[in-house]
């Protein structure tokens, strides 16, 4: 009890502690970030799209990119203008060679035959080289549409050699033939699918006098050849001995045969207005200008009121469907059929299908450029210093971009909706379109 302080008395003062020795304040080293092995991105450096979108060109990487793009366009224009029309470059060579052949008194048919081989090789080069570029382009476009980069490493500049590396990989891969497969049908499927593409490119007019074969029935010939490819896809589906492949092949048959019809009908107005099946003549029929020849709007078939736009849209949609690309990719729907008719294909045989798809895409775009966009014609006369083959390429690439744009925007059609869309929408409208074109021809 004695220890408790009694009320009224102040508590005893605590004994003063001995003064603690003054501690030095804790000094921590500032953090140092190691920038030697990579660019470090702090929270404030994160380039979230919406924030960057506002002040886009204040960023050096955007400014440099825009400058680079402008430089590429200017340099490319200057280059193609310097090269000029290809036929004017090739004709002296041809004349000289034919003179040499005549001087050597070679057999009369030998030199034309050799020249045909040269043309075939040139076209084959285009068909084989185009997918190498287009696949890379597609990967970049799809990546950027999904806020990604796509291939960035191979080849140094934005992965431009990625497709070549992939091609080498496909070339070296094992060719697997399943035990249940019908060996010959399985082998012939990709060949039958790819072969007609090379033939179908023959009458395509790549610019002024740049058609390998100036066929009078060019349009019919191209449609006939593309029709053969369906057989290859069906063979692949049947010969693989796999239910997914079979379903894919059957779907492909149904889809491609159905969409072939409005595709052909949508071209008929063009043929009616041009009065020819020859692609060169169809292109030539689109020269001139609307509004009494004032060079504002060219007389391309896409600019014919109603009929041009309708047939262009129908042809565009059916071309996407013909190349088995999304939204019409039910023959190879990944989520339903593994990968459809080419499930059992690997290595080079798979790359044949791949090549065929991209070659058909190029072919469809070439046809669209020739039928509706005036082929190699410049839209305005002051731009006609750019040669026709460059205009044709630009138009084809723009349409190819549209194909890729559709592919990476739209979800896949359901099978029955796909058929509904074709038979109940595209086909009646293509018929109506022919009727409208008939009115044009009558007036």
């Amino acid at each position, binding site marked *: 009890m004695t220890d408790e302080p009694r009320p009224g008395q102040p508590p005893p003062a605590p004994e003063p502690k001995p003064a603690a020795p003054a501690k030095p304040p*804790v000094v921590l080293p500032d953090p140092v970030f190691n920038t030697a092995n990579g660019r470090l991105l702090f929270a404030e450096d994160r380039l979230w799209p919406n924030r960057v979108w506002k002040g886009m060109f204040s960023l050096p990487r955007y400014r440099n990119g825009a400058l680079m793009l402008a430089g590429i366009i200017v340099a490319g224009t200057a280059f193609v203008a310097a090269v000029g029309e290809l036929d004017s470059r090739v004709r002296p060579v041809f004349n000289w060679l034919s003179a040499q052949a005549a001087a050597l008194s070679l057999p009369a048919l030998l030199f034309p035959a050799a020249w045909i081989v040269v043309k075939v090789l040139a076209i084959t080069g285009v068909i084989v080289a185009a997918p190498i570029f287009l696949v890379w382009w597609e990967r970049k476009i799809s990546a950027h549409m999904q806020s990604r980069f796509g291939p960035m490493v191979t080849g140094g500049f934005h992965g431009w050699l990625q497709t070549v590396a992939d091609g080498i990989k496909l070339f070296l891969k094992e060719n697997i033939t399943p035990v249940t497969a019908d060996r010959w049908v399985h082998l012939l499927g990709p060949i039958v699918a790819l072969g007609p593409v090379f033939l179908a490119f023959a009458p395509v007019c790549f610019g002024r006098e740049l058609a390998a074969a100036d066929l009078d029935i060019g349009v019919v010939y191209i449609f006939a050849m593309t029709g053969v490819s369906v057989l290859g896809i069906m063979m692949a589906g049947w010969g693989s001995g796999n239910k997914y492949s079979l379903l894919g092949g059957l779907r492909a048959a149904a889809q491609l045969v159905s969409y072939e019809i409005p595709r052909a009908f949508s071209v008929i107005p063009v043929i009616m207005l041009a009065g020819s099946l020859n692609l060169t003549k169809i292109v030539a029929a689109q020269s001139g200008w609307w509004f009494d020849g004032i060079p504002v709007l060219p007389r391309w078939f896409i600019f014919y009121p109603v009929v041009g736009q309708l047939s262009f849209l129908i042809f565009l949609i059916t071309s996407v469907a013909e190349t088995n690309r999304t939204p019409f990719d039910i023959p190879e729907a990944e989520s339903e059929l593994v990968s459809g008719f080419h499930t059992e294909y690997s290595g080079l045989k798979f790359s044949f299908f791949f090549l065929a798809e991209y070659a058909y895409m190029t072919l469809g775009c070439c046809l669209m450029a020739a039928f509706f966009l005036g082929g190699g014609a410049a839209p305005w006369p002051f731009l006609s210093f750019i040669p026709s083959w460059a205009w044709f390429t630009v138009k084809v690439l723009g349409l190819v971009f549209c194909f890729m744009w559709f592919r990476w925007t739209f979800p896949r059609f359901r099978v029955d909706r796909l058929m509904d869309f074709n038979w109940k929408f595209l086909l009646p409208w293509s018929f109506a379109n022919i009727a409208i074109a008939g009115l044009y021809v009558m007036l």
Partner: protein
Amino acid sequence: MRYFQTVLNACADIGKGLWITLRTMVKPAITVQYPDEKLVPYPGFRGVLLYDAEICISCSLCVKACPSECIQLESRKNEAGKRVPKVSWYSLDVGKCNFCRLCEEACPTKPKAVWHSRDFEAVFSSREEMVRYWRKGTEYPGQWYDPVTRTYKPVAGQVSLQTVPERILY
């Protein structure tokens, strides 16, 4: 009329979808090109544990706090054989560590003797490398014992984001 209305609406929706993808395409990508670009985590990120043998008072609170028992230490002894509040060696198995920060919270010193760095690039090629040892004068990232050559080796290239790691006073 209703038919044309449907068609027009469908076209408008298709155009909307196309516009969205086109707009996204010209916006910059948000991908970080990892080996060339590295995201620095926010402060307070629980990365690889680092340790400072100069500050540690070898109180074993971190050993007791650790739920996965990845820390071991031994105190130094003076000439009389009595333990002093300095650490003789300290080991930490990064393979067992579950990055919970309980050891850092338990550590009584100021600044913390064991703390989480912001580094996320701990890469090991053997199990021995996962166990890190510290003694007096060892660098922050520690060393690992190579049983083949029977030597202690630095954990080179494992803590690469910061050369002088960030520490927080609290």
